[in-house]
């Protein structure tokens, strides 16, 4: 064992390297935001550190309302997504695990699951734009009603998007975050032997749904806490979805920051930085609040867990089914609407279908599409490969050297997901310029790695740690070296989680907008940067083209990740 240990000593380097790669830019970025926030930015005339900027910031008329809106929409969206994801996971697992349960809609639930998972591949912006067209007063739904029943010649005065409370913003976020959390829950279930506990619960007389809530939920929640936190931090700081679906007077804080950054008056950049620090504070505060609320809920419901009430499950099944159906239909209609737009020349109100169909939008962008698609692929694949190498090395290090990441250093890996992007990317840019790295492919990949690596780690860590320790031990006794064990035992056994992690990492890379802009220095255009710049022009037809492709790539990756192991291991029942 001692010799083996020495032979894997080099692994610890990878752990250090990974931490450095993630923490360096964040530290630099935070400093880069802190200085201007406290008034220091000599290039635009700030030479002293003080808190005047914050004093001025707090006097901004839009600020209090905007902060309230940000917190409300962020927390509500996370809460609703989590509830939906848990309820759907409960239904899916009982459909899967018990044939004789007299649950309604069994078959439909299975179809629903097949439909929901690919939605994680769809970029937020594309989904939001499709949703706007679906539910706007002049949108698709109203057009159907108007066309068939009402005969309105102008759209009704409804406030269905960009409402002052941010409800449509919340809806848009829920549509995207529910599938993500659902996937995370479903991936965590086997680790806690959910199927067996469900059986016990049922044999003790509890309905499957209730068994899930009382037995599985308390066990699975700690495993998905991080994804939930990531969703919360994301919802609080999201820019694109807010721009598209959020209110304008005032907007969420993230949009306010963007407005200040976009303001030609350079002194507004002090506000932007101070706002970014405020957003960081709000995010950390909300995470803390969420943690306390968790504890409170747990205590409150502790008694409920063991009160012995059994009750019926059918209403729950119906409710979950209806809401799941509602989510999935909305998502698919939104995407369908985008697809139709990409094939239309002219589609005015109140036409239910485009007035003129055309392939022009696709033809026009075909050439530039090829180039941007290549860049997107290159960055995505390279980033994912790097992330996989680093993550696997860290996990191997942890197993061979028993050097389990301490809880604290593991949380450091997730910092990029918990700190609002706008807060540190400007500082990263300055640092990059200083080291002559801006606009290089290297920096672009590095900046994507910041966000890809945590997701890959998040997806891969648990399956890796849960792999039966006896496999590597047996292999070792058979004379295999650690590297041989990795390639001939572990990687094949963990092929599926490995590929799923890669697909998720790829989807994350494809969706990056701000990092691509800040690190790429305008030298690289990806499907997402193109889509966002076209979104500024609000031309749904072009947005349709780019949004569709933006969704297609990660979706194909996910499909591949799920079907390759199935095909490779088609004769291995335990692995397929």
């Amino acid at each position, binding site marked *: 064992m001692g010799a083996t240990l020495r032979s894997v000593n080099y692994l610890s380097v990878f752990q250090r390297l990974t931490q450095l790669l993630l923490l360096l830019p964040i530290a630099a970025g935070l400093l880069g935001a802190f200085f201007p926030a406290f008034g220091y930015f000599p290039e635009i005339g700030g030479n002293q550190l003080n808190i005047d900027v914050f004093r001025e910031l707090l006097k901004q008329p839009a600020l209090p309302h905007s902060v309230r809106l940000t917190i409300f929409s962020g927390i509500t969206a996370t809460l609703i997504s989590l509830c939906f994801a848990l309820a759907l996971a409960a239904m899916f697992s009982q459909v899967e*695990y*018990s*044939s*004789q*349960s*007299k*649950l309604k809609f069994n078959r439909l639930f299975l179809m629903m699951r097949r439909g929901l998972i690919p939605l994680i591949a769809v970029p937020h912006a594309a989904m939001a734009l499709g949703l706007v067209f679906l539910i706007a007063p002049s949108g698709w739904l109203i057009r159907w009603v108007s066309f068939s029943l009402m005969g309105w010649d102008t759209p009704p005065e409804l406030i269905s998007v960009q409402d002052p409370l941010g409800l449509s913003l919340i809806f848009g976020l829920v549509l995207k975050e529910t599938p993500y959390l659902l996937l995370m829950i479903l991936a965590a279930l086997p680790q806690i*032997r959910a199927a*067996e*506990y*469900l*059986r*016990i*619960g*049922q*044999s*003790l*007389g*509890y*309905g*499957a749904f209730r*068994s899930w809530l*009382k*037995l599985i939920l*308390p*066990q699975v929640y700690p495993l998905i806490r991080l994804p939930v936190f990531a969703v919360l931090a994301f919802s609080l700081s999201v820019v694109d979805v807010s721009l598209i679906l959020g209110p304008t007077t005032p907007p969420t804080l993230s949009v306010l920051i963007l407005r200040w950054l976009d303001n030609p008056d350079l002194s507004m950049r002090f506000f932007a930085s101070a706002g970014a620090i405020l957003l960081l504070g709000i995010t950390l505060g909300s995470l803390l609040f969420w943690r306390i609320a968790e504890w409170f809920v747990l205590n409150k419901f502790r008694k409920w*867990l*063991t*009160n*012995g*009430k*059994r009750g019926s499950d059918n209403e729950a099944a119906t409710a979950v089914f209806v809401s799941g159906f509602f989510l999935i239909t909305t998502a698919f209609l939104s995407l369908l609407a985008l697809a139709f737009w990409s094939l239309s020349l002219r589609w005015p109100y109140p036409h239910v279908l485009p007035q003129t169909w055309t392939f022009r939008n696709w033809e026009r962008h075909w050439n530039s599409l090829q180039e941007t698609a290549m860049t997107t692929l290159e960055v995505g694949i390279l980033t994912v490969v790097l992330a996989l190498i680093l993550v696997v090395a860290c996990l191997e290090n942890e197993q061979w050297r028993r050097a389990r990441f301490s809880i604290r250093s593991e949380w450091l890996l997730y910092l990029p997901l918990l700190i609002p992007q706008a807060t540190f990317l400007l500082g990263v840019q300055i640092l990059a310029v200083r080291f002559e790295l801006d606009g290089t492919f290297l920096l672009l990949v590095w900046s994507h790695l910041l966000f890809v690596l945590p997701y890959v780690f998040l997806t891969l860590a648990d399956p890796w740690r849960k792999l039966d320790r006896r496999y590597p031990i047996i292999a070792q006794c058979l004379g295999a070296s650690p590297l041989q064990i990795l390639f001939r035992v572990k990687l094949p056994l963990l092929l599926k989680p490995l590929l799923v992690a890669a697909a998720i990492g790829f989807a994350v890379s494809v969706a990056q907008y701000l990092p691509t802009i800040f690190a790429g220095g305008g030298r690289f255009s990806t499907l997402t940067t193109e889509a966002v710049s076209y979104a500024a022009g609000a031309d749904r037809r072009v947005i349709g083209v780019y949004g569709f492709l933006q969704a297609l790539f990660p979706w194909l990756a996910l499909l591949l990740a799920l079907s390759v192991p199935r095909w490779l291991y088609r004769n291995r029942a335990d692995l397929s």
Partner: protein
Amino acid sequence: MLKLENISLIINSKALFTALNIEVHAGQVTTVMGPSGSGKSSLLAHLCGTLAPVFQTSGKISLHDRVINNLPPEARKIGILFQDDLLFPHLSVGENLAFALPAIIKHRERKNIIEQALQEIELSGMSERDPAGLSGGQRARVALMRTLLAEPQALLLDEPFSKLDLELRGRFRELVFSHAEKNNLPVLLVTHDPADAKAAGGPIITL
């Protein structure tokens, strides 16, 4: 009485065993034996109602003259003990038992019953303990008590003794059987340990 009539399980259009007809009387233990893969565990899953959907099934299951084929698992009133104790790790020992207790039993009475049950399995005063801190034998006893507190009308045993060491095994077996007899439960035991079958003392069916 637990009654199985013409029960067969089919997977990939192959029957796992020839159609079964078994009658298990109250207070009696019937043992099902057979090599690995003969379908013992699948049979129990079928009785519980938790069989994987890939199986096709036929035949009739009735418990005290009540046909339960089409009932969901939670309505069947069949308790089961597995090889693993499967205590709920997020609940304390006492809470594990409380989970099984019917809701109609309230507050103070709940507490009393749980304390009594713990006493019965020689674990009194350990209600607040984390199940992870118990020994294998203690955990097995809690699992048994949890199953019984749900007031089942039949008990299925899926090799529940096989993971215990020899000495514990005999004592736990005795405990299970005596409780089953006391509660007048029909018991179906699946095992491949002849000693279990012998101790059960009832009819033996080989798959």
